[in-house]
């Protein structure tokens, strides 16, 4: 991890503050040739589009509302006729495919927004702690070691019991718990960057703190943030499903991939299609995000180690 810091700095043009255009050009060039990453990104965009357009599909393709029940057609096997039974029906005769699309809305929303919260909290705190050091840094350090000192699932367990876990509360809980890893990275990078010559010289010519942080330090840690973000979203999608399994995730009847998978698991033998489809969605999503993370890592800095962040 220490080596990551040096290399990121090493790639930069040391004298002028701006991030080198060539870094991003290079990365883009490499990414375009990385077919796997492109495929992963395309799949992810497709999944996201399908989810976002869920109401349109429900109305115009499947002609089935997501909460619509049919007690006379429970556990229908997957079939093309009617199209709403494409992935079969569940225990109260709802269309699995329509619910899966709406579930994607919820799961992806939670994943991306919670990750956004992570970064909104983690990056500024990390930058500030690393840049200003002093008592603030000590406090942040203490807070992070304390939060990291509790196995995350235990912490989630007791917190999730505190609020009714809906999509928004779940975002809040995960968002405000998961920022520590990002903060640690940003802090570490900032500490090593602020000792560099070009930063000290920027100070010497009278640059303000804000200018130094935003023009000299932040751009340098951006590549890392992108990589972390991809992995973070994937982790949150998985976490949501694990919490659902423990009964602490998003509660039905609001569909999420996690609670659909958990619910379906109790019908493993009776209706395999209820288990397979949400499982595949979660697997695909997380896989794509990890592949994108890997691709970004290779593109932005091939020498960045594959050490895990959590």
């Amino acid at each position, binding site marked *: 991890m220490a080596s990551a810091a040096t290399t990121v700095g090493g790639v930069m043009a040391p004298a002028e503050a701006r991030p080198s255009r060539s870094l991003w050009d290079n990365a883009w060039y490499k990414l375009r040739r990385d077919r796997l990453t492109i495929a992963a990104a395309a799949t992810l965009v497709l999944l996201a589009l399908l989810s976002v357009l869920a109401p349109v599909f429900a109305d115009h393709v499947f002609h089935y509302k997501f909460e619509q029940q049919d*007690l006379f057609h429970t556990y229908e096997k997957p079939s093309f006729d009617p199209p709403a039974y494409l992935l079969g029906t569940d*225990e*109260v005769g709802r269309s699995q495919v329509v619910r899966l699309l709406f579930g994607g809305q919820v799961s992806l929303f939670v994943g991306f927004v919670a990750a956004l919260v992570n970064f909104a909290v983690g990056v500024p705190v990390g930058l500030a702690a690393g840049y200003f050091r002093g008592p603030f840094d000590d406090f942040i350090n203490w807070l992070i070691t304390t939060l990291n000192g509790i196995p995350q699932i235990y912490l989630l367990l007791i917190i999730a019991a505190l609020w009714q876990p809906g999509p928004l509360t779940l975002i809040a809980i995960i968002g405000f718990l998961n920022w520590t890893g990002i903060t640690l990275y940003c802090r570490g990078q900032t500490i090593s960057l602020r000792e560099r010559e070009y930063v000290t010289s920027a100070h010497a010519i009278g640059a303000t703190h804000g200018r130094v942080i935003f023009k000299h330090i932040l751009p340098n840690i951006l590549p890392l943030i992108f990589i972390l973000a991809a992995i973070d979203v994937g982790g949150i999608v998985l976490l949501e499903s694990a919490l659902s399994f423990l009964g602490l995730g998003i509660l*039905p009847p609001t569909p999420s991939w996690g609670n659909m998978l958990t*619910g379906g698991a109790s019908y493993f033998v009776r209706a395999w299609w209820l288990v397979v489809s949400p499982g595949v969605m979660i697997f695909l999503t997380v896989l794509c995000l990890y592949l994108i993370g890997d691709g970004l890592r290779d593109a932005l800095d091939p020498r960045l180690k594959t050490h895990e962040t959590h």
Partner: protein
Amino acid sequence: MLGAAMLVAVSCSSSSTPGGGASPSASTTEKPQQGGRVIEATISDIATMQPILVADTASGRVTGLLYDTLIQVDYKTGEPKPRLATFSVSSDSLKYSYEINAKANWSDGKPIIAEDWLTGLKAVGKSKKTVRKSNFQDIVGFSDYASGKATSIAGVAIDSANPKKFTVTMAKVSCPAIINLIGYVLPTQVFGKYVTDTSKDEIDSAPENTAPTVFSGPFKLTEWRKGDQVILDKNPSYWQGAPNIDQYVYKVVANQTAITNGLKTGEITFGTIQAKDLADMQTVTTVRIDKYQSLGYTYIGWNTKSPTAVGLADKRVRQALAYGLDMDQVIKAVVFGEATKQVAHHVPVQWAYPSGIQLEQYKYDKAKALALLKDAGWTPGPDGILQNAEGKKFNLTISTNSGNTERETLATVAAEQYKQLGINAKAAPEAFQGLVTKLTTGDSTLEATIIGWSLGAEPDPYSIWHSSQIPDPATKKTGFGFTGFSDPAMDKAIEEGRNPSNGDCSIAARKKQYETFNKILNENQPYNFGYSNNVLAVSQLSLQGFKPASFADVYNVFEWWIKK
């Protein structure tokens, strides 16, 4: 057990089917083989082996195997029957006389005597952590003893000539006493030292609570591997005859899925499964499936005092909610037909079930439901949602405890069907712990709640339905009467069934009261009474003599045997 085999099935729809088509239990003439092991699973570890502290099913099961009770309830009818003791009740229902079986001995050879029952009673009096004090409050002198004002309990008299005979005098007539007084027979040679005149609540932390040494039941404790399993070996000197099986293991598993899996693989000898797993279990050729009606029901409770769902205060609206939910279809969908529709409080297997009167069955009738709603002033607004004269929309949140798939599904289905009536209904599962607190404290935010009652052999509905049990947040009064529904005639029937003014505690007399009681509930519908599930008991084909029914399942464990 005592003549249980001769009893004709009364009201119980008990049936036994082989799992995968293999032949069911062996013929009764077959001679029991000795040895073998029975493994039962529990989802939470047992809490204690001290009967007076038991508050959970798992601990109740184990203490029931270690300590015999004074009397027992018939496994099919729920009527009290002799076990350790024969009993009689005076005609004014104030005096209960018991005589403990001459053969009944503790595992250390000492006879089981009246003093041992008194030890159990004193332990309840001394304990700060028992939840059973009120069971004994009507015994003359018990309250004084419990509060430390007296050092003996005046109402208990042990025969000076026969230490196995005793009588209990009650301060007032209380019909549930016959069951409540079953009490706890504890070995005085072990627990006597915790209930001396000077002892305080030492009984709560007695080491013998987790490591008992002397037993009266068919099994004795060998080892308790905390969090994993309780190993019980047979009590060779059991007074009804040593059990055929050598060992009874009570194993802790994480969830219902683990029990179902264990029954399939044979890792668990017997247990119950959920209806959704029945079809799958029927393909397993190594198990037998017994069905019997459960002693409880799942219902939707209406908060008749809800400030947000004001419609629920109106009887006609509640009736409409009964007609407007296709319960037969719901039973098919939610529990795969393994339940019986319920239209009042008592379940069919209880003797208190109002079998003698006609109850409205609330057969699904959407038109009638809509008519009743209209009658009550709820008509469709411009958006199709029902509204009253003041233009207030009929919103309805149906809460239930999360994690219970069956109830979550029921909530979802009910919400959807009520939407068809024009009610803006939605299902809202929440964690059990939060829900229970809201219910018992009378939280006004609850509108409709899906939850279940498990009833006991004693049918007294006082703590659920008497008006004194309605919680009131203003005075911090708590109770189970969260619907807020009360009716003077119903109160009267409950009181007469519990503390009859003429002292007549006979089943016939009480049954009359409960007919009135159920009739009022049936008409007023403070609950949509939902359904009473079938219990689906699965056992390995090798297990013989296992005859579970609504009121008891391991009552004859000493007669079970394993076919090799």
